Each structure stands twice: as structure tokens, then as C-alpha cells.
């Protein structure tokens, strides 16, 4: 293959190649990073990344807002936990059933909620999260109350149980790569463009033939399913789940992951998930000031690079390049 043909191939397939590239880079990590505690953090990042990707599609791409996605994360976790412990349903099936149930919930909530915009929508999602969290705490017969559920078996496929950190690593990051691919595919399709269009201008998008209402509900449901799967994986990974993991502050954390990585930047969501998950562990002596630092970073990113870290840098680069190109073409401009 000639160099030009190779370059053209790489440009056309750059998305797929990037995913493959990242996957290859991830493969040897457990062999290098043998500390199980550090590996554990990486595993948590993978779970959070899945939720963040779905949330980014809804918030970053379709321009909506949700402060309650931890509710779907929690429903996914509890759904899988209850089905596998109380009903002995195999984990994969349980996760699928849970995801279906969560999708239905998202539809039921989404239809009235997505008629709202801006802070009304934000507060509806927040209210939903609080109600779900309260149910998880109060309905102790089913959910185990404030102490939650334990004894959740690790995920097993065809007799192969993902029990230790290394196996979990491959499972969770494999799943993350799958969801990354799905998200990237969505964004590059006509459906994805329709979402981006409705985020910019709903009236104009409708005039282009985009069914705005259906689009919003669809992407909301998709993001809920992502969160549910993340929750199911989380439950099987942790073995024990409690309600306080699924409150509004976790929802806010997910939004922060998306914002820091860049609204609309899917690769950025991975980075954002990594950043927010790792941060508390990096602070060491500053542990007490965790919240302040957390908050200050959010505020700084929003003030300085409102499009998020990665996207903001990409924007700067793009506009420099564009200006450079036009300057070259018309030296007297």
C-alpha cells in the first residue's frame, strides 16, 4: 500500500483505529501496574466512564441537563444485586433485565420531564434522584435499607467468574471500550447529527425534519441504560452496595466528569472520569480540603475553558489552524 493510500485509510478510519489503539494500550497495564489497589482505582474509572459517556450524549451532545443520573446508576446496581442474590438469576441476564427496566423508567420519567428545559429540567432530574435515593433507603425489605445489600456475586460468563482485580480490569475496560465505540458511532450518524442540531437550535432542527421530542427522549433513555449497565457492573465488582453511593452528589460528580472532559467530547469523558475518580486519592495531605479543591477545579474549568479541558484545547487549536489557513490563502485579508 502506498504511503498516500495508507494515510487516507488511516484518516477515514481514524475513529476505529483510535479505539483499537487505546484498547491495545490498555491491555498490558495490569502486567505493569501490579498493585491491586491502584488497579482497583482504574477499574472504578472504567465503571464511571461508562456512565459519563452516556451522560455526555445527553448533556454534552444533545444539550440537555441532568443532575440525577446517579439514580439510574443506583437502579442498575440494585436491580442486578436483587435479581442475582434474591432470585439467583445469572448476572448477564440480570443486567439485561435491569437495563430494560431502567429504560422503561427513563421513558416514563422522560416524557413529562423533557418537556422542560434549563433549570426546570435540572431540578426535575434532581428531584427524581432524591426520590429514588429515599426509596433505596426506606424500602428496607427489598433494598436492605441504609446498610444496603451485600454478597453480590462477581459477574460470571460461561462459568468464568471475574473475581480478582485483574480479571475485573479486562471485563470493565472491555465494556468501557464497547460503550465508547457505541457512543462514537452514534455521534457520527445522522441520528447523532440530529441530536447536535437540536442542542443548538430546536426550532431549526425541527425545520430540518428532526423529531426533537422523540430525539430527546431517546437519548435520555440511552444515557439511562448506559448508567444502568455501569451500575450493574459496579454492583458485581464491589460485592456490596449502599444507598449513599447513589445520591445527588454522585450525580453531580458525573456531571463534573463530563464538564471537565468537555461537553460533547466523548474521549474527554474518559479523561474526566479518570480525573474525578483519582483526585481524592491524589490529595494525600490535602485530603481534608478535598471538596474545596474539587469545587475550585470545577469553577476554574467553567470560567476559563467552558467547553471543558480537552474540548477547550481542541477548540483553540482548531481556530488557530483555521485562521492560519485563511491567512495563507489571502495574504491581504
Amino acid at each position, binding site marked *: 500500500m502506498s504511503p498516500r493510500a495508507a494515510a487516507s485509510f488511516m484518516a477515514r478510519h481514524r475513529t476505529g483505529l483510535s479505539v483499537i489503539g487505546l484498547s491495545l494500550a490498555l491491555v498490558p497495564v495490569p502486567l505493569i501496574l501490579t498493585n491491586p489497589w491502584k488497579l482497583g482505582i482504574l477499574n472504578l474509572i472504567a465503571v464511571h466512564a461508562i456512565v459519563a459517556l452516556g451522560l455526555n450524549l445527553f*448533556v454534552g451532545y444533545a*444539550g440537555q*441537563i441532568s*443532575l440525577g443520573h446517579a439514580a439510574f446508576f443506583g437502579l442498575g446496581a440494585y436491580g442486578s444485586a436483587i435479581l442475582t442474590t434474591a432470585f439467583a438469576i445469572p448476572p448477564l441476564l440480570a443486567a439485561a433485565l435491569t437495563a430494560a427496566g431502567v429504560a422503561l423508567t427513563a421513558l416514563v420519567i422522560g416524557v*413529562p*420531564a423533557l418537556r*422542560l*428545559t*434549563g*433549570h*426546570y*429540567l*435540572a*431540578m*426535575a432530574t*434532581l*428531584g*427524581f434522584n*432524591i*426520590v429514588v435515593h*429515599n*426509596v433505596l433507603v*426506606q424500602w428496607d425489605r427489598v433494598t436492605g435499607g441504609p446498610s444496603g445489600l451485600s454478597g453480590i456475586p462477581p459477574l460470571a460468563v460461561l462459568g468464568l467468574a471475574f473475581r480478582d482485580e485483574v480479571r475485573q480490569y479486562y471485563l470493565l475496560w472491555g465494556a468501557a471500550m464497547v460503550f465508547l465505540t457505541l457512543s462514537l458511532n452514534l455521534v457520527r450518524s445522522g441520528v447523532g447529527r440530529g441530536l447536535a442540531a437540536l442542542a443548538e437550535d430546536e426550532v431549526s432542527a425541527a425545520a430540518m425534519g428532526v423529531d426533537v421530542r422523540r430525539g430527546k427522549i431517546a437519548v435520555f433513555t440511552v444515557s439511562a441504560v448506559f448508567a444502568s449497565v455501569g451500575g450493574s457492573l459496579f454492583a458485581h465488582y464491589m460485592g456490596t452496595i449502599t444507598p449513599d453511593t447513589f445520591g445527588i452528589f454522585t450525580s*453531580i460528580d458525573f*456531571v*463534573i466528569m463530563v*464538564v471537565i472532559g468537555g*461537553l460533547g467530547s466523548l474521549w474527554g469523558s474518559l479523561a474526566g472520569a479518570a480525573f474525578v475518580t483519582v483526585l481524592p486519592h491524589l490529595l494525600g495531605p490535602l485530603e*481534608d*480540603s*478535598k*471538596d*474545596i*479543591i*474539587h*469545587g*475550585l477545579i*470545577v*469553577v476554574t474549568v*467553567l*470560567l476559563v475553558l*467552558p467547553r471543558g479541558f480537552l474540548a477547550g484545547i481542541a477548540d483553540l487549536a482548531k481556530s488557530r489552524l483555521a485562521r492560519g489557513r485563511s491567512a495563507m490563502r489571502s495574504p491581504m485579508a
Partner: protein
Amino acid sequence: MSSLQDFTQFVFSGLTSGAIYAMVAMGFGVVHNTMGIVNFTQVDFVTLGGMLLYGALVSAKMPMTVALPAAVAGVTLAGALVEFAGLRPSRSRNHLLLILLTIGLSIVLRGAMQRTWGKNSMAVPPLAGEAPLAFLGATIMPQAVWILVITALAMSLLVLFFRKTTAGLAMRAVASNPTAAAVVGLRVRRVRTASFALAGALGGLAGILVTPITTLRYDVGVLLGLKGFAAAILGGFGSFPGAIVGGIALGLLESLGAAYVSSAWKDTIAFLVLLLVLFARPHGLMGKGAGA
């Protein structure tokens, strides 16, 4: 106790919490009207009020008559500072961004309070008197009376402020039409800072009044504040009488619901109401019409 006495008790309790919710709701409303955003730091103003009162009374050993106004003044200042340092620098008009910004600022505020006062619960001395009073057969704490009295006073002062003072008029002008207000020479930025300060005062006062009853902790304002928000939505977000109506309605719903239906789900009531209102009638009981 007879059931009528019980009922009176619950009604009173509902009115008391309702008054607090109303004040918090008004704090949300003021900022929403002048800036068009939901200000998440409002919940922390509530906490801060309690914290500053505690600091003034216990650490600085001031008498209540000095400590209370000092605490209010402190939160007022904090409110202005949050707007000046945290929000003004943002040139964005994107609502999502601004909401997230106030969330970030709220996290910073809460973290700062946690660093300063720790994570433990603290007891705040009540305004005056600990002995319960008897009223219509119900037993009420004097603090509850103070809450109702001071809230009513604060509301009246607020009405006077908005109707009779130039500053209040300026705020209403900016709320109504910021461009026109700027054109006629009003300092829109200053008004916005002032509205944040006012929101701080309202939230702080609510915290000062209620934390002697509930306990004081670095995150006590969150639940209270969110319920205040629910009250604001119920009454009509941004509406002044709506905040009062919504607050009282929510307080009563909560109190009577907890008493006669189930107390375990008390905290859920406010948010079920919130969802119901948002889904069925987003502009609330007294709202000016659909708007987001």
C-alpha cells in the same frame, strides 16, 4: 392529647417549617429574577447563617442581640462575594454552564465550611428561652414563635424594600428588563451583586432561625435548601407571594403527611410534590406563565 390538639401541633409545625422554606424560596427567587439562574449556593447560605451565629455566640461569646445581626451581615457579605468572585468573571450566558458554576461554588463553600467547623454536628443556642409554651392545647417551642414572627417581619421589610426604596426598584427593573435597565443608567452588575447579597441575607436568616431546632452541620443547608427550592417551584418560581404560598403549602403538606400517612417518607414528600408540579404545572400555583 386529643386529636384536635395533635392536629394543631402538626399545623403549627408545618407553618414553622413552611416559614423557613418560604424564606429560602425567596432567596432563590431574588437571584432568579435578576439573573435568570438557579443559584445552588443558596443552600450553603442557610448553613453559613447557622455557622456564623454559632461562631458569634459560642466562639466570640457575643450576646444574641449582637450575634444575630452580625451573622446575617456575614452571610450577606458572603453572598455578595460569591457573585463578585465566582459568577461575575464568567462571560457565558449558557444556563447549563451557570448552573454548574453555582454548583461548583456551592461545593467550594461547603468544603470551606467543613474545613472551618469540621464535620460534626453542633448545637446552636435558641434565640430566647428553652421552655415550651402552650398554645391552643399544643406544645410549641419558643424558637418556633420566633421563626414565625421574624419571618413575617422579614417579609414585610422585603415588601417595603421592593416597593419603596430605590435599590428595590432597581432590582425589579433589572429583573424585568436588564437591557432597558442598563440603558436608563442602572448599574446592572451592582444590582446583581446586591441581589446575591439579599439572597444571602434571606438564606442566612433562615439558617439562623432553624438550626437551633435541627442540628447544625456543614451540610445541613442542603436538604433544607432543596426543599426551599421545591417550595419555590410549588408557589411559582420567581414569584414573591408564590414563595410564601409555596413555603407554607409545602410545610403543611410535609407535616400533615408525615403525621397522618407515614413519617418515614417525610423527606420524600417535598420532592414528590416538586416532580408533580414540574410535570403538571411548571409555573406553579402563582407563577406568571410558562417559562424556563
